[in-house]
């Protein structure tokens, strides 16, 4: 299959891949139920997208960290652009085609590869054509700048949601105003009215979802830690695709219960657990299975990812649904450390993680396309050094397999684990 195929074929590819994984899981007696629910959740998401395309329903493409709660409340079908592109590419090993198509559009190689590939995917017609494009500056200049080219490729209107940099009262008010403007735009373009009661229900579930994320994080403090290293990517996907949706809640509740059982039984994700790791940023996604295997071999497990799994304090209030959507934007882990000023409290949070999760070492996946994150490598290394936690930095690209070889990554990890062993 090539990316010249219709968008619906590609989406079908994701669904088929999820079904295969689900069947494989069902064949394994020890497979956790949460795994099955996770892949069902993804398959359902893309089935809804396919149905929407066929039935002529209104589709909104949106970039990462976008408040999809609003789309669900307006009965608009969301298409998470980064997740969809890369799930499609990774399941079908088509990264090179997408990146090449991005280059043909004139996008420089220094632009983050997920966004180059994203534009390439639309140019190739590999993603369904959206009715509107929605994007924001969460989390970087790439997200802020990716929307207009996609609008032009798809000849569709779009809305840019401007997130303020800090979180003063004036900035909170500004964001709420932006959300109102976006709802107005969507009502005008889609003909759908905002259902405020439905938004309140979604916000109530999102609040529960965040509590579940926190409970899962708490369970990971146990020694041994029950959660597999790469599974945190599934937590992100649940929030990206299905914020405040019943199927995300079901998946997370099941996962939480499974982890709680493991903790009660003293079971760890790796056995024996030798190294408790802090993961900073995201490893190459095409190596997740391989990295899991290396971790098992060495008894190394990631127990916390401060940039991705540490939610900010506070609760969402369904009686103030729009304010809560704005508040969530301020609470998401990525917002607190990768966007906005690098405050003392953000740095202290890293140190708190070391103590709370009993960290032996940290691995920073230095994704070459993520400039604003890599700018924190030195600071993080320095503060971790102060508490005697060594940090390994691995240069990588999260989607482009031409950057790292398995052997090279394995070599670096092995050396790091040996160094931890010697301490």
């Amino acid at each position, binding site marked *: 299959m090539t990316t010249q195929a219709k968008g619906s074929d590609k989406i079908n590819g994701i669904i088929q891949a999820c079904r295969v994984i689900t069947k494989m899981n069902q064949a394994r007696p020890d497979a956790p139920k949460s795994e099955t629910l996770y892949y069902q959740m993804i398959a359902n998401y893309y089935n809804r997208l396919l149905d929407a395309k066929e039935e002529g329903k209104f589709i909104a493409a949106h970039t990462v960290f976008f408040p999809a709660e609003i789309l669900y409340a307006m009965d608009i079908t969301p298409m998470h652009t980064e997740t969809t592109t890369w799930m499609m590419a990774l399941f079908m090993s088509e990264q090179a085609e997408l990146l090449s198509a991005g280059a043909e559009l004139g996008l420089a190689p220094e632009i983050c590869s997920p966004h180059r590939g994203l534009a390439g995917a639309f140019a190739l017609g590999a993603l369904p054509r959206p009715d509107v494009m929605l994007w924001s*500056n969460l989390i970087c200049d790439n997200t802020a700048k990716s929307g*207009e080219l996609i609008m032009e490729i798809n000849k569709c209107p779009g809305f840019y949601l401007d997130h303020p940099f800090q979180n003063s009262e004036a900035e909170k008010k500004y964001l709420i105003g932006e959300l109102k403007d976006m709802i107005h735009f969507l009502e005008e373009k889609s003909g759908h009215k905002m259902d405020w009661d439905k938004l309140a229900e979604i916000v109530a579930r999102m609040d529960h979802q965040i509590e579940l994320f926190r409970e899962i994080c708490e369970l990971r403090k146990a020694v041994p830690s029950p959660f597999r290293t790469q599974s945190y990517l599934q937590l992100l996907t649940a929030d990206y695709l299905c914020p405040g949706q019943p199927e995300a809640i079901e998946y997370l509740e099941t996962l939480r219960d499974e982890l709680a059982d493991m903790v009660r039984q003293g079971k760890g994700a790796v056995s024996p657990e030798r190294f408790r790791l802090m993961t900073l940023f995201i490893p190459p996604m095409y190596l997740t299975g391989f990295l899991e295997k290396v971790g098992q071999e060495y008894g190394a497990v990631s127990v916390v990812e401060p940039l991705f799994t540490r939610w900010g304090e506070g609760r969402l209030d369904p009686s103030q649904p729009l304010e809560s959507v704005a508040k969530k934007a301020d609470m998401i882990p990525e917002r607190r450390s990768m966007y906005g000023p690098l405050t003392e409290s953000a740095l202290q949070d890293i140190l708190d993680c070391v103590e709370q999760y009993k960290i032996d070492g940290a691995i920073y996946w230095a994704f070459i396309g993520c400039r604003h994150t*890599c700018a924190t490598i*030195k*600071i993080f290394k320095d503060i971790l050094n102060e508490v005697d936690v060594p940090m390994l930095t691995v240069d990588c690209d999260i989607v482009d397999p031409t950057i790292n070889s398995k052997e090279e990554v394995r070599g670096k990890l092995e050396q790091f684990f040996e160094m931890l062993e010697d301490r």
Partner: protein
Amino acid sequence: MPPESSKIKNIKPNTLDRFREVNDRFPKTAEILEHKRQGKKVFGWLCTYVPEEIIHAAGGLPVRITGYPQEMELEDGNAYLYINNCSFSRSCLQMGIRGEYDYLDGMVAGSTCDGARRLFDLWQYYIKTPFSHIITVPRKYTQSAHDLYYQQVSQFKQHLEEHLGIQISDEELLHSIEVYNESRALLKSLYELRKLGEPPITGAETMEVLNASFRMPKELFNQWLKSLLNELAESGNHHSGRARLMVVGSVMNNPEFIKSIEAQGGLVVTDELCTSTRYWSDPVVIDGDIAPLQAISRRYLNNFPCARMVPSDERFNRILDLARNFKVDGVISQNIRYCVPYAHDLPLLTKRLKAQGIPTLALDVEYGTSGSGQIQTRVQAFLEMIEAKRK
């Protein structure tokens, strides 16, 4: 190949040498050191969304943070900001870490792009300039964006007042607006000369003037620029070239880069850079009952936009206007590697310029580049293409 253009036919204006001297000594210019000697404060600023008038009205000397004047090994810049942040940020940070800006009493930035905001974060953490402030800069032009930016500008003013233990009055702000507007008007006059068929000043020389404008008291700069304009009027200098060019893209303030283009026979007649046209283009307008601080805030958010702003067509349309007004034959887009806002805009801008019959040469560069052999070859080919098209 000997250039056909950029001939200096008459005398070199003396004032240009004075501007060059300021730049040669930067960051420790005589003017900055004199300001310090008088017991006054110097504040570094990053990015054109920081309103200099407020610093000026507080009695401070605003100095633009720039990096090394040439492409350098950036060992410290790489170590602190990592290799994938733009070389402008890395160059500036390295200078800061090595104490070249040790006279600064403060550092002010805007949340304009990833490079700038992280440079500010690391500056604050490792260099610890006594005063530091970052302004949230919205990316839109809506009324609520203006309200937020005004609130941010007011907060900055208040923070600066508290730090210095002073109150900045409306009269002081009005005076600063007058000084800065005069500077903008004089720079506009300089650019008007570049619209001529054979301008009396080259693009590289203009860049020297602009660099000095960030590095000395504006009152003195205005005096010197008036002298330069008089000298140019009397000089009889005429520069011509194989093609009239505009330079667009990332932050760039190296006259040597422009010189290398002009040495090939291209005549750089205008630009869309935050170190030049976008720096001076729009005055602060005091109309009706508007308070001076509001007028400042309105000007800075509405100014000729950086690629960070949305919609990008605001920027593209102003570039197209410049191309028409300065009778541009071709556009050179120089993008610093990892300068993402401009890299994303490039395909869209190229398409719009092409629709107007204006070709674009896209160059990936590092900050401070003086125009390597490869760049010269590509400029040469670009000029040949423009000439062939003309025939």
